[in-house]
């Protein structure tokens, strides 16, 4: 009861401020759903802010509601967890890059706990296990390099000559060649992973970012954020053989395993373009609409698809949601509420769980893939960005 009166006070406050902003009298219907997600989640910063006198009462009220929701969440999570624990343990380990902390958090997927925090270079973002599972590669953009973490010892054992400001990268199937997007000089750098030397560059569009390799290994995809294209690069000749225009600020590219489709997310455009890799043209676009959410807040970034090509998950950034998409019909089935500014994601190898990084709320949400439900949140370092998972 007390809570309800607080919420109604909050809504009327929001109404008053909306009134001040506009002469239009009718946005209140949407207000409830706009404020609702904000109430369900608060960051430590907001919690701290709520403790300061005279500050944002939205954060304060949100804090109380969150605690209640959390208690309920914890009970539910404990219940689910007890079910999970009773099944045979899946021995996986997840590495999460924390962009602000300059660390990598190591998560054990048996206990869903952080078991180690590794200090790395400045501004870690893109992160991947090597194909043999022995090392974790992490792009530390402000140090202009990619560091190799030994997965057994958690020590940084080497650095790769990546070119300036590396962000995302992709390995070929054999794990011998690494392709790196260098945001600062409009190039994709090619690195021999065995010799750990740079073997070439490909000139691409402005601000290269997303990287993907076709299942047959013949085509490398790079997306350029200001040019707004997916560049098709022949991995044998290292020449651009096609360019496909997509919506604004393409950030991530993902092939279906049967090579039938290439998906590219556009952060500012708010869409995922579905491209026919053979014809090299956009054959469909997936749009997202969260009730009460302004168009500007829906910013698709990370994409993950199940191996059977049936279901896809798309991180929607500051919309704080992961969209569940039927990968065959391209229909959005569901939106899962996760943490704030959701970035990237990775499946556990058995595809039972999907872990997503929440940049602003400093945590990782764990999604039960079959149930399509978020069942766990794990606190990590500051501004978690990338994630990679492998068997222990």
């Amino acid at each position: 009861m007390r809570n309800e009166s607080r919420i109604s006070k909050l809504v009327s406050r929001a109404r008053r401020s909306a009134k001040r902003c506009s002469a239009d009298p009718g946005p209140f219907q949407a207000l409830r759903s706009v404020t609702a997600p904000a109430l369900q989640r608060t960051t430590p910063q907001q919690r701290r802010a709520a403790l300061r006198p005279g500050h944002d009462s939205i954060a304060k009220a949100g804090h109380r509601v969150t605690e209640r929701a959390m208690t309920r969440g914890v009970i539910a999570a404990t219940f689910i967890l007890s079910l999970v624990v009773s099944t045979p343990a899946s021995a996986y380990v997840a590495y999460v890059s924390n962009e602000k902390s300059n660390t990598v958090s190591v998560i054990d997927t048996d206990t869903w706990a952080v078991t180690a925090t590794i200090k790395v270079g400045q501004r870690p973002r893109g992160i991947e296990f090597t194909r043999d599972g022995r090392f974790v590669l992490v792009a530390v953009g402000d140090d202009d390099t990619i560091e190799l973490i030994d997965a057994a010892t958690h020590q940084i054992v080497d650095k790769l000559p990546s070119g300036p400001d590396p962000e995302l990268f992709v390995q070929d199937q054999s794990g011998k060649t690494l392709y790196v997007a260098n945001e600062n000089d409009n190039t994709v750098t090619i690195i021999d992973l065995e010799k750990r030397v740079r073997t070439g560059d490909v000139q691409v569009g402005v601000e290269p970012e997303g990287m993907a390799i076709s299942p047959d290994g013949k085509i490398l995809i790079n997306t350029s954020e200001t040019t707004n294209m997916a560049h098709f690069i022949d991995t044998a000749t290292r020449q651009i053989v096609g360019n496909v225009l997509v919506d604004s600020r393409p950030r991530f590219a993902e092939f279906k395993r049967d090579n039938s489709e290439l998906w590219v997310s556009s952060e500012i455009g708010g869409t995922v373009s579905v491209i026919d890799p053979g014809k090299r043209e956009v054959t469909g676009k997936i749009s997202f609409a969260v009730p009460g959410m302004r168009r500007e807040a829906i910013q698709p970034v990370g994409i993950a698809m199940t191996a059977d090509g049936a279901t896809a998950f798309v991180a929607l950034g500051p919309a704080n949601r992961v969209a569940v998409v039927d990968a065959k019909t391209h229909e959005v089935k569901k939106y899962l509420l996760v943490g704030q500014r959701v970035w990237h994601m990775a499946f556990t190898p058995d595809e039972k769980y999907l872990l997503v990084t929440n940049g602003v709320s400093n945590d990782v949400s764990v999604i039960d893939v079959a149930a399509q439900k978020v069942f766990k949140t794990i606190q990590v370092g500051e501004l978690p960005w990338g994630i990679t998972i492998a068997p222990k």
Partner: protein
Amino acid sequence: MIRAMAAALLLCALGGMARAAEPVEIRIGYLGRAASTPTLSLLDQPAPDDGLAGARLAIEDNNTTGRFLNQRFTLDDIRLKDGDDPAKAAVALADRGTGFIITDLAADDLLQAADAVHDRGVMLLNAGAIDDRLREQDCRGNVLHTAPTRSMLADGLAQYLVWKQWKRWLLVVGSHDEDKAFGDALRRAATRFGAKIVQERVFEDTGGARRTDSGVTLIQRQMPVFTQSAPAYDVLVAADESEVFANYLPYRTWDPRPVAGSAGLKPVSWDAAQDQWGAVQMQNRFMKLNARRMSARDMQAWIAARMIGEAASRGNSAEPKALRAVLHGPDFAIAAFKGQRLSLRDWNGQLRQPILLVDGRMVVSVSPQEGFLHQFSELDTLGVDRPETKCKLK
């Protein structure tokens, strides 16, 4: 004879092939001012190519993209000295085949230039003038605006001050027309967002140099006296676009209070310290090309030239008419390192954009602030909204 004809035919064919391989050219004009007014701080003195440098970077970016689409962008600039006719200059650019002109002109000059090329189908992109009237009673169908308005700037600042609970303002307004216009925008913002102006003072410009050898001694005696005996207030808000007094105020007010507006915490469209949302790449590119930091005017011109590039790649065309159709289309949006898509207000051609609040070293905050809601776009909580507009596009 036959040989000659064959040779001529071959030449024609070769010429035709060469033309087909040549990229199509998209000419963009830039119409700016040659001189700038002196500022109080040497650090604020604009570079000679302020604005133009941003357009140049966008041309490079457009050309990197253009390589893949067989498009080439060129920039043709004219800088007006005092007394030069803006209409003539705009016509001269149109004569050179320019379908778009980026302008950094005073309001009246901009209107003259826009009207002079209206019938020739030339579109202007205003990257300099912040006057609300250009988007309201004096709006033009052939002008888009990438510069924010005074009211957008004032609203961006007001939302933050209200969020910060600094709701009692001492407003100090300069004596020039543009100072008064900013004062009006701040007064409107206070009413909209629930701040209270406890008192208003006018700082008369009595003339005098902005540089003197013993300046500080005098200023630190004048400013405390000028701000003495004010009713209780939280923040001094200054409107001084003419660079007469505002930057003298921080640390010199009678009561120890922060300063905002034209000094202290300033609302701007861009700042050299902005590093969120991928902006570092932009700052690095700008620095590499121009060997200096990027100003708000540079960014406004960059966005203008990028909008034309974006329209050219979306429309896959070099025809100004086709590009204008893309720009006016309902889905047009541009990415500009401000964390969200920027779109155009269809009722007056103004670019919606977040407003940065900066202190000269850091970006302190970005408006719209959390909690200021809007039924269409939160960016429309900044500036004059659709139901209030006086613009009737022609």
